């Protein structure tokens, strides 16, 4: 039954997940999906990397969503990530002023993705991180992971998630610093160096 009777809690059961499939490219990505930081913001960071399968081959059809707080650790409440043009029905993109905290990026033909966003601030006992949701053809249920930025060793050591992981696995969640403000973060879906994926309960 697909009419849910909310007066019977036992009938409110989750809708199963399915793969995003190969043909979402004309539907989900939008112009400026990767440009999350307001234009010219001094706290802008670039994160980029590859999504790789169990044979180390890059995925040309993965979709990444990022969700992170602003540099003060505040979660964004502004909408307008995918502003539309009422006249043409096309995309206007973000307004370059408001920070929505959310972005969506399709990997390119080389399996590479990048995003420019604001450096996330710490929240509570957590070291600063960006939350990541990975979708792909072949992936029946999306995967959650996190991008922690290197630098503040003390904060990383005290992080409730990172401190639970053995070193080798923990390192899969910490991006590598490149040029100033640029960080590399590869996502390995399977095999050697497999990224730590998360389940929330």
């Amino acid at each position, binding site marked *: 039954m*697909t*009419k*849910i009777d*909310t007066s019977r*809690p036992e009938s*409110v059961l*989750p*809708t*199963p*997940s*399915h*793969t*995003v*499939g*190969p*043909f979402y490219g*004309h*539907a989900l990505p939008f112009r400026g999906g990767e440009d999350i930081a307001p234009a010219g913001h001094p706290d802008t960071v670039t994160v980029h990397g590859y999504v790789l399968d*169990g044979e180390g*081959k890059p995925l040309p059809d993965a979709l990444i969503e990022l*969700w992170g*707080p602003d540099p003060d650790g505040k979660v964004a*409440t*502004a*909408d307008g*990530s*995918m502003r*539309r*043009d*009422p006249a043409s*029905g096309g995309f206007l993109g973000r307004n370059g002023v408001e920070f*929505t905290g*959310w972005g969506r990026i399709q990997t390119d033909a080389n399996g590479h993705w990048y995003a420019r966003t604001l450096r*996330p601030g710490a*929240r*509570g*006992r*957590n070291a600063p*991180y960006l*939350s990541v*949701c990975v979708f792909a*053809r*072949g*992936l*029946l*249920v*999306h995967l*959650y992971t996190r991008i922690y930025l290197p630098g503040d060793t003390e904060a990383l050591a005290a992080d409730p*998630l990172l401190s639970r*992981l053995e070193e080798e*696995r923990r390192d899969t969640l910490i991006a590598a610093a490149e040029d100033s403000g640029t960080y590399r973060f590869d996502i390995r*879906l*399977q095999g050697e160096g*497999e*990224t730590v*994926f*998360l*389940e*929330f*309960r």
Partner: protein
Amino acid sequence: MTLTQHDIDQEIAAGRAAYEKRLADGGPVEHQPRRDYAPYRSSVLRHPKQPPVTIDVSQDPELVELSSPAFGERDITEIDNDLTRQHHGEPIGERITVSGRLLDRDGRPVRGQLVEIWQANSAGRYAHQREQHDAPLDPNFTGVGRTLTDDDGRYHFTTVQPGPYPWRQHVNAWRPAHIHFSLFGTAFTQRLVTQMYFPSDPLFPYDPIIQSVTDDAARQRLVATYDHSLSVPEFSMGYHWDIVLDGPQATWIEEGR
């Protein structure tokens, strides 16, 4: 070696038998597909082998994942939920209306959140460059829609009935007609991408993607119900499909946003 439907049928049956055994041994009802479901070959190299690391959200109200991006009137246009009005002409095919409610695990409506859909045209062809299926494109149909849920959690789309399509995983592999859905909840932990199917599709038993949901009741929740009250006289056939988001959320948040 050529992969046949018979090979896939046997693997699907083995997957069901394995699930029934897990149930008989006292295992939990599995509402979600397993990521390593071999009858769907693309999953083989794309699923993690390590178990996921569990985070108990009740221990930490500061988790970024307990909030969710916001969407508003700026993120949609007025006709985004009518896929038959996005071009100068009318698309070919049987017009349908698809409507339902977006709910959380407590049965509460998820309000003001973004619902995105995409689908093949009535001939079973996507308006996507990489799509190779030799069926006609429809110049009047892109097959992409968006809307925001209302105060009751309700969404509403007008579109055309999508056609089934071949997908070459094995000889004579056909996807049952479906509409892809992408959904956000009040927490990022509730994110969902899935597919809605149509009642009594004869292709269900052959399709490893719908069969990846091995629990019969869970699989039924992917199938819309024909709803005569949603059919519009002289215009369209109506289908009802409610969606329940899995995943925990912040317990201290008041109902809604």
